[in-house]
């Protein structure tokens, strides 16, 4: 049992974050992560030795989180951290620049929030949790090629959402026509 408690301790961070990105509710995320760890314990018999534990666990977490997803009314939106450690480039920025950066980040998070569940999951898992395509293929139970194409489509929809927002442009000034594919 204590060996498993150690596993929980090591992986609960990413498990909770993944669950939060799916449920967008802190309480639901903790419940889902906890339930997933219990289920994973009882499914250990089927876990292939030597295989990476994290994607195997996150698959169970993702399914648990999806099962627990509550109504939209109870969801919190993705938000920025207040204060905290700032990267070197953030420190160098003037207060005005820092505020502008934060505003850009907020718009990105809002756009991600507005995505459908499937799109939001692939985008947040890939870019917020930094999971590899191989890991995501295992977590989502699909081929790597499918992960790639889902990501590409989700990014396309995200880009469209960001550009549709009044005055919105995430990075460099716009050029060329809008490609909606």
């Amino acid at each position, binding site marked *: 049992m204590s060996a498993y408690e*150690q596993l*929980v301790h090591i992986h609960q961070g990413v498990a909770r*974050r993944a669950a939060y990105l799916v449920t967008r509710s802190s309480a639901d995320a903790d419940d889902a992560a906890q339930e997933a760890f219990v289920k994973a*314990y*009882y499914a250990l*018999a089927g876990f292939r030795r030597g295989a990476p534990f994290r994607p195997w666990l996150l698959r169970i977490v993702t399914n648990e989180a999806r099962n627990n997803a509550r109504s939209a009314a109870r969801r919190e939106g993705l938000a*920025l951290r207040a204060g905290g450690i700032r990267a070197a480039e953030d420190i160098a920025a003037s207060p005005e620049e820092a505020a502008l950066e934060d505003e850009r980040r907020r718009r990105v998070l809002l756009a991600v929030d507005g995505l459908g569940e499937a799109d939001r999951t692939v985008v947040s898992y890939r870019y917020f949790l930094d999971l590899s395509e191989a890991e995501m293929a295992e977590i989502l139970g699909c081929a790597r090629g499918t992960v790639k194409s889902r990501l590409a489509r989700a990014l396309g929809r995200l880009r469209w959402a960001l550009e549709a927002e009044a005055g919105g442009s995430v*990075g460099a000034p*716009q050029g060329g026509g809008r490609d909606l594919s």
Partner: protein
Amino acid sequence: MSESSWPAELEAALRDAGAHLRYPEGRDLSAPVAHRIRLLSTRRANRSPFRSLAAALALVVLLAAAVTVLSPGTRRAVAGWLGISGISIVQEPPPGRIASDDLALGRRVNAERARDATGFDIVTPADPALGSPDQIYLSEGLPEEVVTLIYAEARGLPAMGDSGVGLLITEFRARIDETFLKKLADSGVRIRPIVIAGSQGYWVEGRHALYYAAGSGPVEYRSRLAHNTLIWERGALSLRLESGLPLLDALRIARSM
């Protein structure tokens, strides 16, 4: 964003936003998880005569109903849901009368042998009209054996097609996964929850299959009899009772076990 560089720029913006994302403070999960596992394991150990039920042997019984669900894609989905690779099919009884001994339920044994092999106390109905099972089968090739009890149709039980079987009881050392059942019920499968001797049970109509996670990976157990079935837990066992009987009669038998 310029046309050629927009994906890279958007990806960079996403990573940057993600690096500043606020995740809520959560409670430490290792203690509550450990507590719940101990609770579940204790509950089983106390009810089960088989005390050394290690967590690694714990099984989950999943239920899938309707022929359309029994596709290879679904099996992979079920295996995927549990994060287990590979799934194999257990023998299913062939159509036709069950009087012959070369059934695909496994090998035929007597009650004593079945108890020795599985290590759990096989439960049987206490109904005097039923008597003892006519045939007992022990499945082959699984670390966690499955016991099947057959009562012949001749005992006054309604026929199930021309199988010759009146009542079929399957016993697994496993527990029922309720989340999966809820998902199935939501998708229109006819599953009716029923309490049986204090445990949560289910009355399932029509053709269905069971999936369970054994030590070697998930296994699909399918019955071609395709009659209404009661499924419930009793201690560390999951029990399955299939017959041509109406619900109340099936319940009466189940409650006598």
